């Protein structure tokens, strides 16, 4: 088992109800959940690997492959939808040449659509690495990803 995994587990007792928090912690540390890590969690919590997968795949938050350096979350909330989020999405996909759920080949950006960032008053918005960009227009999207 990797050393970092031990440090993650040291914060928990291994009880069943900690399962989601453990998975969250691992994803926070490593960016995603690998098959090996899922096996480690199964051992630690005594929950069968299939069940760990069952829980992990149920929730939107968990990823099973690495993400890019910059994590873009596009809000697909109602206010954003009404204020033109589909066009923002088109433009981001067009600029980065990837689809939702994918990562650019150079590993710089990954694009994900999420339920709602809760910034509806300033729709449409996206979140890049925990920072919200609000009141976006397709034109501004172009500038966001301009290579320096």
């Amino acid at each position, binding site marked *: 088992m990797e050393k970092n995994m031990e440090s993650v587990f040291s914060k928990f007792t291994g009880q069943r*109800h900690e399962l989601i928090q453990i998975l969250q912690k691992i994803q926070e540390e490593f960016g995603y959940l690998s098959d090996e890590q899922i096996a480690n969690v199964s051992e630690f919590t005594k929950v069968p690997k299939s069940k760990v997968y069952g*829980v992990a795949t149920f*929730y939107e938050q968990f990823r099973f492959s690495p993400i890019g350096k910059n994590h873009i979350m596009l809000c697909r*909330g109602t206010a954003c939808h009404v204020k033109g989020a589909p066009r923002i999405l*088109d433009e981001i996909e*067009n600029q980065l040449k990837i689809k939702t759920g994918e990562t650019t080949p150079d590993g710089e950006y990954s694009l994900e659509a999420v*339920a709602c960032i809760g910034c*509806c*008053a*300033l729709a449409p918005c996206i979140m890049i690495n925990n920072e919200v960009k609000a009141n976006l227009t397709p034109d501004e999207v172009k500038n966001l990803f301009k290579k320096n």
Partner: protein
Amino acid sequence: MDLENVMNKAKKGWAELYSGKTPLILIGAATCGKSAGAAKVKEIFTEETKKRNIECNIMEVGCIGMCYAEPLICIKKSDDPLVCYGNITPEKALEIINSHLENDNPVSEYALGTIGKGTLKDIPELHETPVLKNQVRIVLNNCGIISPSEISHYFANNGYKGLIKALQQKPADIIEQVRESGLRGRGGAGFPTWKKWQICRDTKADKKFLICNADEGDPGAFMNRSLIESDPHSLIEGMIISAYAIGANTGYIYCRAEYPLALARLDLAIKQAENLNLLGDNILGSGFDFTIKVKEGAGAFVCGEETALIASIEGERGMPCPRPPFPAVKGLWGKPTIINNVETLATVSRIFQKDAKWFAQYGTDKSKGTKTFALAGEIKRTGLIEVPLGITLKTIIYDIGGGIPEDKEFKAVQTGGPSGGCVPKELLDIPVDYDSLVEAGTIMGSGGLVVMNENTCMVDVARYFIDFTQKESCGKCVPCRLGNKQLFRILDDITKGKADKKDIDMLKKLGQNIKATSLCGLGQTSPNPVLTTIRYFKNEYDAHIEKKCPAKVCKGLISFEIDPEKCTGCHICFKACPTDAIIGKPKETHLIIQEKCIQCGICYESCPDKFNAINVFSSRN
């Protein structure tokens, strides 16, 4: 130091802070303020005042609710009332520093209004402006005024006085007062709060739990985020009172992981409360023990359903169970559990800070008190508002919200998120209360209000919501799992012009069946957006059957054309088109090859406003 001393000290400190002797600058720094550029504004104030040797206190506060005017700052100086400024840019910030801070001359041009005693020339009193005049701020009264990181600010504004009062009473008396207040659950269905508590209180068990649902899953709603980011202690105080009333010693706050700032402020507030024995063992010597743990939700809309939320806290897949038994009898780990929404619990703290009768004076006979709403979409003044129940939608949208931008035509307002429905113009006069909204085919929900204008396609909106619910369906029961998928397929066909009249009847029939037979609240309400749009906007469905999208939204039906009269051959659209569907040489008129066009609208967006040469049509020619 005992609590009384701490509270007295807090009161003094607060009076000093707001005395105006040292100028006080408040920076709105909830998520909306931050994303609008509050950090930059704060930096300017910090650096400039330092450079100019202006002594002042700069304080980050939460959200005052006027998100449309973010970034927002307020200045309290000398005996003047607090002056609230909106839409602050770096240039405006410098002007305010020059004029207001250095020369005692508030900049009326940028001021939204004043708060507190006294008046200023050319600046209205904020509570007399249309935005606030119709509001009654009970739960939100501290938001944007106090620092969410300072428990002393909460103390100075009657904070925890409700708890002290409550701990001196018997739990039964507390439940009685909540009954008197008429408070109903603010999370959706509006079940009387006291009744739920009573059921839990009456169930005998060695352990009981209290859960606060802060998983605000409705897309289009942000009341809970704003409240926690601005005034976390009002939630904690409400939780302690509730736990004492039902006899729970452990509480959980189930909060979305997408709200990092709210989570951070919550953690800090819990630690502060623990340090002063407002949480922990033998709270304030009452013999009552209570601790609060925060659980981060992992992103599942269905966890708004009580039994699914409980499964999630237990570390399972968030799948609901049939009820009864209700969680108040058999919930978390099989023990009696109360689940209340953030606003419900924060309201409890206010009811005990004052009294039940005072709260019950607001609202209608069956829906008492106030309710917060998140105003968003095609409306001038977006933001977080709090109004007495029974107010009309018209007052909310036109007086508080200022109407529709660019004087476009109002089409509908969506309430209750994916479980709610769309209310048309004809019903704008109905009162906003639990029962009237149900009659209109929608629900109160947690308080999201998304306004739509003539450019919104109602069939597209229905498709959008069903796409959301069919993805969020947990898959346990067949009507929801498969029924919503079918609803989506039919709607998708309609938006692509591939459906006929019979399909609309099928939507209705299927929708009613899903409502009647689904296991939990998600499926029982998911067809509401479809059924209400068919009920009120049937003409739009009919148009789509005839292969027309009147709002010019549905990609499968609309078309784009270049106006040869207006096109100057600037070549911008040519370069922007992702499918090479545009032909034409620079300085010559361009043309869209319809067979190649995917209706993405990028050319329309890229055509410079001064030419405006691309037309959108509601159908294919």
